[in-house]
């Protein structure tokens, strides 16, 4: 496996994630798409970390931080989605139109 293969995989995942964020109308699926983007970031960091054989393992450490922070963010995000679902019985982001964009 070469570095390039990992980078292509990560770029593809990142693009799919952006596509999902733009296209999906359900807030939970938007969240999942963001998770895909973060997974792409982690692949990049770990692949580069391995490639540089960095003595401080910077890339891998960064990936661990990203995983931790992403978990916390999903917690916050699901709490907000749950709140909206309780008030409106829907998690469709198109129906959020009280405030004009």
């Amino acid at each position, binding site marked *: 496996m070469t570095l390039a293969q990992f980078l292509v995989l990560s770029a593809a995942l990142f693009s799919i994630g952006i596509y999902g964020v733009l296209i999906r109308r359900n807030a939970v699926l938007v969240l999942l798409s963001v998770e895909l983007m973060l997974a792409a970031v982690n692949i990049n960091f770990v692949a580069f970390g391995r490639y540089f054989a960095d003595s401080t393992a910077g890339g891998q450490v960064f990936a661990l931080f990203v995983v931790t922070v992403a978990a916390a963010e999903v917690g916050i*995000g699901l709490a*907000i989605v749950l709140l909206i679902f309780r008030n*409106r019985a829907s998690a469709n982001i198109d129906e959020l139109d009280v405030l004009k964009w």
Partner: protein
Amino acid sequence: MFDYHALAPDFIVAGTVLAVLGADLFLPRERKWLAAVVGILGLTVALIPIVTLAASDDSVRSMMDGSYVIDDFALVLKAFFILTGYIVLLMSVAYVEADRYYQGEYYFLVLASLLGGMVMASSRDLISLFVGLELVSGPAFLLAGWKKADARSNEAALKFFIIGVLSAAILLYGMSLVYGMTGSLSFDGIREASASVAEEPVFVLGILLVLVGFGFKVSAVPFHFWAPDTYEGAPTPVTAYLSVGSKAAGFVGILLVSYVAFAGAPEIWGPALWILAALSMIVGNLIALRQENIVRLLAYSSIAHAGFMLVPFAAAALVEGDSLNQAFEATVTYVLIYGIMNLGAFAVVIAAARRTGSGQIRDWSGLGSYAPGISILLTLFFFSLAGIPPLAGWYAKFVMFLAVLQNANGWTIALAAIAALNAVIALYYYARVVQSVWMDPAPDEVAPDPEPSGVAPSLGLAFGMLAVAVIVVGVFPEAVGQFAKAASAIAGG
């Protein structure tokens, strides 16, 4: 390895965060405001080590292989975040108490977000910068949705959250590319390695993605569209915090990556920030002209101010020679002064909206005839935002123009012209509110004052501090200028 003196401000605030959460457990419902008192006391104590650190001979204290540094920049920004938190807590007490919603957790989240800003100010590598940024954002998402039963607050939180995590993902992808091209996570390492890869398209893409990520954070056009909705839907003290604390955190990030990490590649970030600055000023001000809601007006005004703050970046990058320090100083000055006057403007919004029961500008007509105190403060802060001397705002704009025109060329003069034009447009919509308050007739029946005794004492204290600061800084701009000058020592690495 650890310099506890240097870390004392962060540790004290972290301790305060936990103390507030703990105090909330034991306080009875009607005494929850004491949690805010605990927070304010903790922030006051945290200022002590900042003063002693500033007075000590070691001006730069570096920890963890230079990843976490306490220098003048870090101290100035930490003090700024602490004072912002101080004012926001004062503004919040009466507001949150009226709602009787989870007060203890509210103060906890404000302080936690603040701590994130303090971490960012010290971070000198990508990991600590990212962790600090997320610590700023995470609690802010929850605060935006604080009015749980209010559909507008829910919507504000969700929009803010989706944009927030999307921008974090873009920022991280950019960081991963920068790491991949330079092999280093520390700003010093990136700067040293950047000379050899500055031409690489992937490195350029990495820098641009990092700037896009921070562009969302500071709500620069075209990454601004979440800001008006979130500002309008969130509780007003939270909006004040978002427009000052969270935006300042974004600027700390942009300042650090541009002037320290990417100091070797200004030809990449300079033009990009030129475009962001010009668009933010033009779009922010033009849309602000036709806003009817005061919070949306301030939201667009804060987008325009983000544009003004970005102007020196473009100027620094586009001229030859050693102008980085001066541009850095100009942006820091602008951020500090903007913080004072924008917090003041939102404090006025809280007081006036409670008095009139409305956030629509037309409902404020004639406010001056029945609430002169609030109206005088409104005039003070809005004219300061417009940049009228002798109020603080003029100095922010003055140093910005000075930084641009010091080493002028065609591009910087064009940007200065756009900025000058926008300063005039901005004056119009600020003056429109002031005119409506003083000159338009009051409604025939003015609703009785819900608080006959005047504004809450905590809000009054915040008003007093901000009003004094706006006037003192306007008359003696060195009061802020010297801090910004000290902070600018890190520019260029």
